[in-house]
């Protein structure tokens, strides 16, 4: 050891120790920036679609084109390009399709708005239907039917007298309006 270390024993040990620590720190720092870069590559790739296996993101896919495109993203990030620049680069080559979140365009309007339009239409329809049903159930009981129903059900007439009476008058009204236009 003394032959190649020009310093005295203790100094030499310290110098070697220091060198080892320095190498260790440098190695860790390198691994750190590598994993940081990799995380950024994956972040960008999450927003892009794999063109071969179309329901996967570029980050999830193991297709060879996806591997190539991730390498391209890595290279561009290492050159200091922003995620937006990388996305533009991909869109210029592969079109909007490469974006996992479709952008707002005239051509994608139906895609974005369609489900909400359908939902609102369905709600309006259900609302109208329910309102109509409330009206019709109130109007279908005429006094004879109510009385017969009471009889069959064995309910004493006094219990339903009030509600039945109201419905009966409505029913009578209804029949009168309905029969007005008919030749008798």
């Amino acid at each position, binding site marked *: 050891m003394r032959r190649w270390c020009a310093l005295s024993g203790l100094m030499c040990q310290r110098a070697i120790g220091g060198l080892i620590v320095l190498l260790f720190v440098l190695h860790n720092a390198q691994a750190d920036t590598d994993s940081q870069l990799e995380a950024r590559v994956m972040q960008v790739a999450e927003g892009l679609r794999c063109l071969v296996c179309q329901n996967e993101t570029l980050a999830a896919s193991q297709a060879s*084109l996806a591997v190539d495109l991730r390498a391209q993203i890595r290279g561009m990030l290492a050159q200091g390009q922003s995620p937006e620049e990388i996305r533009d680069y991909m869109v210029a080559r592969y*079109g909007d399709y490469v974006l996992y979140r479709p952008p707002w365009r005239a051509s994608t309007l139906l895609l974005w708005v369609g489900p909400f339009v359908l939902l609102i239409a369905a709600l309006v329809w259900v609302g109208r239907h329910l309102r109509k049903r409330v009206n019709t159930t109130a109007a279908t009981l005429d006094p004879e039917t109510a009385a017969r129903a009471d009889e069959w059900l064995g309910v004493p007439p006094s219990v339903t007298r009030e509600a039945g009476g109201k419905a009966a008058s409505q029913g009578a009204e209804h029949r009168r309006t309905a029969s007005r236009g008919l030749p008798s």
Partner: protein
Amino acid sequence: MKLALGHAASPRIWPVALIGALVLLLGLLAAGLRSGPRELPSPLIGKPAPAFQLQTLQSPQRMLTPHDLRGQVWILNVWASWCTACREEHPAWVDFAKSQRVPLYGLNYKDKPEDAMRWLGNFGNPYVHSLVDGDGRTGIDWGVYGVPETFIIDREGVIRHRQVGPVTPQILRDTIIPLLQRLGP
């Protein structure tokens, strides 16, 4: 009377409208099923051919760029010896090359030159030149996402058509040759 009319009209209109919307949606889905989701539209149609500077398979010392091909209509066919669909479309290109309509260039995509040479030796070489894209970078620039793909470039160096997947004699007859006739020699 007016009120009665309104009541009579609304229950008839709504189900019809909903069924109409449903039929429309089903039609849209059916069209989606038929329209081959693997064929993506290219944003490069109508744009200048992306630049490259590549060696050719036959003469590695010679570099070729799109600029060298200006002033003529030409076809770029992306192929590889490992690609089975390329093997499928190959006879159609060999036949096409015999007709000598326009020059056919190959882009040998992510292939080993020796494999590519052997493949051309076995099945015939319809290409004026095959450009060597060993790492697939030129393929990325052209938006290639699978092999084979075919591009038609006009005299101004603008991409006019892209065909994804193997070319068949029908596609050549019905799509590619009529387009070439429109673009002129």
